[in-house]
């Protein structure tokens, strides 16, 4: 439930996480990325708010708050450099940056991930054009499979971020098939730029790690482009209106 929050990386001298079990009227269970998709959407959006409140660039703010953690800084710096973060985006375009250290299997592995998403204008809408994704998963045995997980994981996260809305009426789920519960289709798949960092650490986990940072990075870019601050998933379609 609070994956990625209780074990978050930012240097916060006063930090307490408490959870309360909320009884839900419907059974819920794990999905790919476990709790991190929901928790990191909140957490990274909160960090984005703090940066905006402080009037500091999103990359610089995260860098300052992670200066004690060289592996975190490394993924953040690599993704920012690849995306030319310090060069402003073209007019009408917008970017968002996000970070997460995925702590998996009860602390037995740590994989560092940083992403930059690029939104571009397309008619009266903004569309997701490209995602840069820097990862430090320890020693990589098979870079081809790892790259496939970066591509597919981001696509999976986009289905959750953009489409997976479940609603209820009279105690029944209203969605029943892909017409009412769409999956991401090929025309919505952005270009992916994988950035795999060399590491001496033993191999860490990877199947779920790239998902969580996607939605908060898009929300941050939308806020920058449209002034609308989105704090629900799936991100509403009209949030992408220009």
């Amino acid at each position: 439930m609070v994956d990625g929050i209780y074990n978050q990386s930012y240097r916060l001298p006063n930090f307490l996480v408490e959870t309360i079990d909320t009884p839900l009227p419907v059974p819920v269970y794990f999905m790919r990325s476990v709790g991190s998709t929901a928790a990191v959407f909140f957490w990274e959006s909160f960090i984005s708010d703090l940066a905006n409140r402080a009037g500091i660039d999103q990359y610089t703010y995260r860098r300052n708050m992670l200066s004690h953690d060289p592996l975190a800084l490394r993924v953040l710096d690599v993704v920012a450099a690849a995306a030319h973060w310090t060069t402003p985006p073209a007019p009408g375009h917008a970017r968002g940056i996000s970070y997460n250290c995925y702590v998996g299997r009860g602390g037995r592995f740590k994989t560092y991930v940083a992403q930059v998403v690029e939104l571009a204008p397309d008619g009266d809408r903004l569309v997701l054009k490209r995602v840069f994704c820097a990862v430090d998963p320890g020693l990589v045995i098979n870079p081809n499979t790892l790259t496939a997980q970066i591509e597919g994981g981001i696509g999976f996260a986009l289905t959750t971020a953009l489409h997976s809305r479940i609603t209820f009426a009279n105690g029944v789920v209203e969605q029943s098939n892909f017409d009412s519960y769409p999956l991401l289709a090929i025309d919505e798949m952005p270009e992916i730029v994988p950035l795999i960092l060399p590491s001496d650490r033993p191999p860490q986990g990877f199947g779920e790690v790239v998902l969580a940072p996607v939605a908060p990075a898009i929300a941050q870019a939308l806020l920058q482009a449209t002034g609308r601050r989105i704090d629900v998933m799936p991100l509403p379609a009209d949030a992408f209106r220009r």
Partner: protein
Amino acid sequence: MATVTLRINGANRSLEVDGDTPLLWALRDHLKLTGTKFGCGEAYCGACTVFVDGNPVRSCSLPVSQVGNGAITTIEGISGPEAAAVQQAWIARDVPQCGYCQSGQIMSAIALLKAIRKPTDRGIDLAMGGNLCRCATYVRIRAAIHDAARALGG
């Protein structure tokens, strides 16, 4: 129940089924051609794509009574230069992840390359838009189709 004769992958196959049985279930349950997959049953996902007289159709939504004399090709029976180019490109790019959608993806890719020698990205979006992939292998599907088009001299 009726005896229905279908022309599948170049051979006549007779089976006892209701005429309204979707072709998908005739293929999978009666003929054990399980390369063709069930995803949604309502023509939304493309996992069940086969060719009838060379045209891609969603076999989940086609009753066997409507196939008539149409020549059916399933993933098990694909052949020809487009099929070979797509198979090679799929292997070289390591496209599949879980693999579930891939029979349908490959059928649609072959149909696309038969219709358009050198598809653009937009052409790929249009032709492949009905083939969903939960693993989101779309980056490699796109790249493999471009590779196959190049191999075919497109």
